[in-house]
């Protein structure tokens, strides 16, 4: 009985102690709707890849550069000025709240008239997150934007990312190459590739 009264007294005192002298007033509320965002921007050339010289026919048994692989002649692409830089690039938005991973996949190229197929694995790629041309004078880091590169897969290649943990406002450059096989019949082949930007799980 006594113990019960003691517990009640303590609880009552704890709950209602504010009324014994401490006065508080509620004058306003803070409301903050925190939103996370993820966005990437690709260069115009990145969605319009053509191999070889514009309008030129490709020869069997030959490998070709994508038309803008080396077309950035000279300018501030990447750290310092780049010579023969790629015009294919993707930039993580400066408003991103996370670092992003960028992966790529492709679909077979089908003949525009006819049934022949050029397998997407004949298209290869390479990327660099520091230099638009993959190399830079005086820098000895490995050049990963040179032929033959990695073949495009049918699913997003998480083993080989275009860019990992790309920080806000940073750019990744990439190049494509096409291997025209000896047995491929002549024709115009059209396909599609997809590059995807995802949350890396690491804050920006």
């Amino acid at each position: 009985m006594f113990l019960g009264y003691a517990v009640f007294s303590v609880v009552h005192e704890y709950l209602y102690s504010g009324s014994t002298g401490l006065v508080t007033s509620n004058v306003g509320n803070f409301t903050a709707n925190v939103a996370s965002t993820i966005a990437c921007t690709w260069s115009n050339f990145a969605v319009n890849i053509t191999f070889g010289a514009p309008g030129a026919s490709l020869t069997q048994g030959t490998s070709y550069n994508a038309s803008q692989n080396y077309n950035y002649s000279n300018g501030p692409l990447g750290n310092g000025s780049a010579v023969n830089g790629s015009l294919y690039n993707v930039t993580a938005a400066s408003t991103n709240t996370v670092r992003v991973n960028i992966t790529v996949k492709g679909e077979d190229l089908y003949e525009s008239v006819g049934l022949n197929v050029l397998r997407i694995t004949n298209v290869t790629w390479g990327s660099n997150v520091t230099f638009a041309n993959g190399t830079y004078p005086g820098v000895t880091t490995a050049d990963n934007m040179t032929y033959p590169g990695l073949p495009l897969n049918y699913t997003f290649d998480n083993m080989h990312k275009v860019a990992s943990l790309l920080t806000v406002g940073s750019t990744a450059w990439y190049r494509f190459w096409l291997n025209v096989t000896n047995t491929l019949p002549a024709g115009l082949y059209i396909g599609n590739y997809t590059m995807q930007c995802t949350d890396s799980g690491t804050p920006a």
Partner: protein
Amino acid sequence: MNNYSAKKGRSHFQRFFLITCLLSIALLPVALADIGVGLSPAKRIYNVEGGQVVDDTYTVYNTGDGDLLASISADGVIAQFVTIDASSLLVKPEPNPHTLPIKNGQTFHVRYKIPTGWSPQTYTGNIVASGGRAPGSTLGGSVSVAMQVEIYAKPTRYFWNRITPNQWMLIGGVLIFIVLFFGSRRYMKKRGIHLRFIRDRR
């Protein structure tokens, strides 16, 4: 006269130069239009109960230079039980330079019907916004941004809610069979027809 001609000639040149400059400026955004796509939020984690329906709203926005026709889809395990109210949305570009908050984004609604379950489950997947593909190119590019979705589902609280529609159909079928069997047996018994299982003694 010569001075006049010279003046007139320079005027033509200036006009030509001006028109060329204006045309270049007018065509520049078209020729160099970047394509960008964004999603908000970047990631969503839900802690729910099996059988629960979760509704949410996300925003797709455009960090490129021109209008974007964004296709919205889902992939991964969540694709089995997610419905999206818009398959594609026309999104105006964000003001340049792009800053938050998002001004021209388009919202879309997503509904997750979490499967009922007897044990804790984790479902993962992506909500993907994609756009782009220039016609006429050998290798057209599609660009996409994926927001990650993680759903941690606790076991369904009530026993009856754990039973899936297929299991309900099975239970219903068994009950109907029992009712029909015993009902018909009782009916036949009233009519004097007795059904009995007899062991063959041979």
